[in-house]
C-alpha cells in the first residue's frame, strides 16, 4: 500500500449558517485516482479548496504530503497541491508561455523557462507556446490550465470538473493525462458529474452530499445496490407474459416489443423467473442479467440522503 499523500479526518466547513462540508474523512495514496461525485452544491469545490490550502476547515484536520494544514502552513500546503479550478481563468492577452512562466515564478520554480518547456511538451502545447491564450480552443485552454496546475510538480493534483464542456476528443486527452499523472505516482482527485468517466478513471469513488455517502471501488459501489435486473427476450411478444413474470419477488420494470425487463431482489430468483415463464408456455429466446449501474447506485445514495 502506498503512502497516504492526502489525509482528511472529520473535515467540516461552515459558511455562516450553511454547512458546506460535514465530517468528511478519507485518505488518498500516491499513484491513486479518487473520483469525487455529488450533486451541484454538494461541497465538492469547497472540499478541493480546503485540500488546496485556499480555505481552512472549521473543524477536522487535513494533512497534505505530510504537512498538516493550518493558517501558518497554508502557503507550504499550496506548494504541494496543484489545483485545476472549475474555470481555466487564463490571462487571455498573454501567450501560453507567459501564462505558465508567471505561475512558475510565483511558485518559485527553479529554472522556470526549462520547466515551462517541459510541461508544455507534457501536455502537447509545445507548438502553441507563443499563441495568445485567448485564441485557443476550450480544449487547449484546459490543457494550459492543467499545465499551470502542474508547473510546480506537486505530489497532489486536484482536478475540478476537468472535462466539463469539452468535446469528446479533448475530454479523452484529459482522461489520458490523468492516467499519466497516476503513473507518475501522484495522488489525483477528480470531481466530475460524468459517472462513466469516474468509473473509467478512478481507483475509488467518493459520493458526497455535504457529508460522505460512500467511498469504495467502482465495482464494490455497483454491487452495493441490492439485487439487479434481468432482460428476458420472448418469442411472439412480451406483453402477454408480464403478469406471469410479476409474480413472486419479481417486479416488471419495462415491457417493450419482445423484451421484458424484470427487477429481482436476489440472484437466485432468476431461475425461478425462467422456470415460471417456461412453465406458463413462454418460449424464451434469451435471458440477460444486467449489472446494476454506477448511475443507479449514485442516484439511490443521493436520493436516500434526501
Amino acid at each position, binding site marked *: 500500500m502506498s503512502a497516504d499523500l492526502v489525509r482528511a479526518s472529520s473535515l467540516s466547513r461552515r459558511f455562516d449558517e450553511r454547512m458546506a462540508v460535514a465530517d468528511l474523512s478519507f485518505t488518498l495514496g500516491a499513484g491513486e485516482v479518487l473520483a469525487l461525485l455529488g450533486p451541484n452544491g454538494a461541497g465538492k469545490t469547497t472540499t478541493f479548496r480546503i485540500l488546496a490550502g*485556499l*480555505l481552512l476547515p472549521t473543524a477536522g484536520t487535513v494533512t497534505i504530503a505530510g504537512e498538516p494544514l493550518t493558517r501558518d502552513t497554508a502557503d507550504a500546503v*499550496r*506548494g504541494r497541491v496543484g489545483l485545476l*479550478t472549475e474555470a481555466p481563468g487564463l*490571462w487571455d492577452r498573454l501567450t501560453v508561455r*507567459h501564462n505558465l512562466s508567471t505561475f512558475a515564478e510565483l511558485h518559485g520554480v527553479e529554472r522556470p523557462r526549462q520547466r515551462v518547456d517541459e510541461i508544455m511538451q507534457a501536455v502537447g502545447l509545445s507548438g502553441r507556446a507563443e499563441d495568445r491564450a485567448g485564441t485557443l480552443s476550450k480544449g487547449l485552454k484546459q490543457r494550459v490550465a492543467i499545465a*499551470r496546475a502542474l508547473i510546480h510538480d506537486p505530489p497532489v493534483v486536484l482536478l475540478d470538473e476537468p472535462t466539463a464542456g469539452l468535446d469528446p476528443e479533448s475530454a479523452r486527452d484529459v482522461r489520458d493525462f490523468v492516467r499519466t499523472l497516476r503513473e507518475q505516482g501522484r495522488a489525483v482527485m477528480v470531481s466530475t458529474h460524468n459517472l462513466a468517466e469516474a468509473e473509467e478513471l478512478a481507483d475509488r469513488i467518493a459520493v458526497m452530499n455535504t457529508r460522505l455517502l460512500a467511498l469504495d471501488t467502482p465495482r464494490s459501489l455497483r454491487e452495493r445496490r441490492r439485487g439487479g435486473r434481468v432482460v428476458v427476450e420472448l418469442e411472439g411478444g412480451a406483453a402477454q407474459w408480464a403478469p406471469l413474470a410479476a409474480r413472486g419477488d419479481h417486479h416488471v420494470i419495462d415491457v417493450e416489443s419482445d423484451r421484458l425487463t424484470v427487477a429481482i431482489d436476489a440472484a437466485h430468483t432468476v431461475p425461478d423467473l425462467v422456470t415460471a415463464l417456461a412453465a406458463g408456455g413462454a418460449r424464451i429466446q434469451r435471458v440477460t442479467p444486467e449489472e446494476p449501474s454506477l448511475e443507479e447506485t449514485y442516484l439511490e445514495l443521493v436520493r436516500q440522503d434526501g
Partner: protein
Amino acid sequence: MASSWSRIAALTRKDVEEVRRQPGVLIPAVAMVAAVASPGFLLLIVAPRFTGVALADPDLVAAAESLSAQLPALNNLTPEGRAQAFLLQQFLMFSLLVPIFAALSLAAQAFVGEKQSKSLEPLLTTPITVPELLLGKVLTPLLLALLLMAATYLLHLVVMLTLGEAGVWRTLFLPRTLMLYLLIGPLVSVTALLSAAIVSSRANDARSAQQLGGLIVLPLTGLFVAQLAGQFLVNTTALALTAAALLIVNLGLVWLGVRVFQRETILLRWK
C-alpha cells in the same frame, strides 16, 4: 521557495505585459494629460497671442505682487511674466488629476479584469500572500500614473520654455511646484489606487470603480475654483498639511484594504 519580491515582480511584469499588449487602456489616461494641460496653455499662451490682450490686467498684477513673499521668483519677471507665472501656478493644481485618473482607471481595470477572467482563484492557489497580491496589483498602475505625471510636468516645462514669457519656466522648480509633483502627486495617486482596489472588490465592472474618481476629484476642483475666485495660491505649508492628511488617509485605506483582501473573502465574496 520564491521570495516575496520575486512574486511581486512576477505579478507586476505580468500586468505590464498585459498593458503592453493592450495599449488602448492607456488612452483615457494619456488623454487626461492633454485635457489637464490644455486649459492653462490656452489661457496663458494661445489667448494673449491671438487676441492681443495682455494677461497682466491690474487686478492680476496686484494679486501676483501680493504673493511676492510667497513666490519671490515673481519679482524678477516682467508684469506679463508675473501674471503668467501666477496663473500657471494656479493651473498646476489640475495636474493632480493625471495621477488620480490614471491610477483609478488602471487599478480598477487590473482588479476587475482578474475577476472577469476568473484568474484570481488560480492566483490564490500559489504561495503568494494577500499583501503581495495587493502590492503586485497596484505597482503597475502606480508606476504608470507617476510616469504620466512626470510627462505632464515635462510638457509644462517644454511649453513654458519655448512659448512662455522669459523666466516663467523657472517657477516650475519652486518648492511649491516640486511638492505638488513629488509629494502630493504620488500620495494622491496611492489614495486613488487603494480606493479603486477596495471598490473593485465589490464592483463587477471597471466603470463602477472608476466612478469613485468623482469623489476624489471634487475637493481638488473645489480648491482650484477657490484659488481662481480668491486669487490666492495654496502655499507650501498648506501643501505639507495636505500631504500629512493624505498620508493618514492612505494608512486608513491600507488598514481597510488588508481587511477587504482576505484570501477567503476574495475567493467567496468577490463575484
